């Protein structure tokens, strides 16, 4: 296979674009896709201070590298989940990456916040991935607001977004459907959230990270086995294999033709967020998700404490 742009030997085949690219032309293709997402969706400008959520995986590191290449003002934030071996490894990748590319980095340790994921796993029946996601979103948003960042950027790619949309559609979750997209504006205690990689597949970000020689972590989280998102991704992969381009048309079709309808519906029927009565974080449930997690742990820890009586 030859490169569609320069006719050199191709290194990456992209059936959905009916194209192949050599390493140099693939990096150009990738940058253009990111640039198109930023411009088309008006995600941010060079005046914004951008906080990039860095997990140590290919997507977040690729995003930080690309935004830095485009001369945006980027700072990294890593959340150490305190999962034995896995978190140490992920943190090492982030630290080395930020040191090598001279990107300022902040780290929040869940152990210090008394919310280490292994501890939470023991207290909750629901999948720990949803608890973990809730905590990460809380700290990313809070850190961004408290440190005057105007934008929070995450490395969610097309596969993540298509799988999330698929999941939301299966449940017809109008609130989530009205709230899904590459741009969530800043409002009511939430910083602006953006997903500049939404046009690029997981395969494309993996190729980008490899060709850019980014030292990323490719071992999965030990707690993610059996997660429904991974299953949805497999289903969509199968669809994409037989019908190249299906994922982007599913997601962009939603953005262009359905999202606003769900957003309107959510505005009419949804609740307005108000500050959490414990920590002030915006929530529609009186007490925010993270404070509820803390309360659950506290009540169950107290209940399981042995009692001693004096004889």
């Amino acid at each position, binding site marked *: *296979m030859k490169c569609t742009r320069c006719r050199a030997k191709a290194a990456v085949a992209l059936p959905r674009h009916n194209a192949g690219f050599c390493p140099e032309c693939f990096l150009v293709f990738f940058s253009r896709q990111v640039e198109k997402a930023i411009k088309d969706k008006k995600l941010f400008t060079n005046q914004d201070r951008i906080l990039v959520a860095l997990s140590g995986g290919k997507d977040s590191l690729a995003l930080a590298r690309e935004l830095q290449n485009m001369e945006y003002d980027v700072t990294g934030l890593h959340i150490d989940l305190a999962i034995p071996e896995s978190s140490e490894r992920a943190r090492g990748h982030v630290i080395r990456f930020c040191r090598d590319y001279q990107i300022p980095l902040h780290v929040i340790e869940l152990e210090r916040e008394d919310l280490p994921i292994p501890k939470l796993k023991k207290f909750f029946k629901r999948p720990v991935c949803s608890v973990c996601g809730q905590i990460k979103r809380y700290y990313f948003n809070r850190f961004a607001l408290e440190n005057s960042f105007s934008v929070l950027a995450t490395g969610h790619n097309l596969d993540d977004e298509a799988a999330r949309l698929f999941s939301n559609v299966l449940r017809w979750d109008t609130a989530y459907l009205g709230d899904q997209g590459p741009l969530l504006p800043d409002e009511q205690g939430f910083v602006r959230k953006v997903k500049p990689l939404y046009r690029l597949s997981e395969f494309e970000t993996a190729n980008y990270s490899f060709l850019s020689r980014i030292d990323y972590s490719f071992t999965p989280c030990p707690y993610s086995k059996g*997660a429904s998102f991974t299953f949805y991704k497999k289903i969509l992969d199968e669809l994409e*294999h037989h019908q190249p381009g299906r994922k982007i048309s599913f997601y962009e079709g939603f953005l262009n033709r359905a999202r606003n309808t769900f957003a309107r519906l959510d505005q009419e029927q949804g609740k307005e967020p108000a500050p959490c009565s414990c920590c002030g974080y915006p929530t529609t449930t009186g007490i925010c998700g993270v404070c509820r997690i803390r309360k659950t742990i506290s009540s169950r820890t107290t209940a399981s404490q042995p009692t001693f009586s004096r004889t």
Partner: protein
Amino acid sequence: MQILLEPENKVLTLDRAGNVCTLLSRLGIRPGQVLVIRDRELLTPDRKLNPEDKITIRKIVSRG
């Protein structure tokens, strides 16, 4: 031909070579789900493989 599967770090040895597409098909993997690497070079599905090759197949799906 020696195959290293990542992230499991599982090593397989196959005698027949063919091309990347047939190799992935034998392993039940879709081409869009992995990077196929030989000597730090990425291979497209049409690339021919040699019996003496050492190939790394790295899964790309992020979990967590």
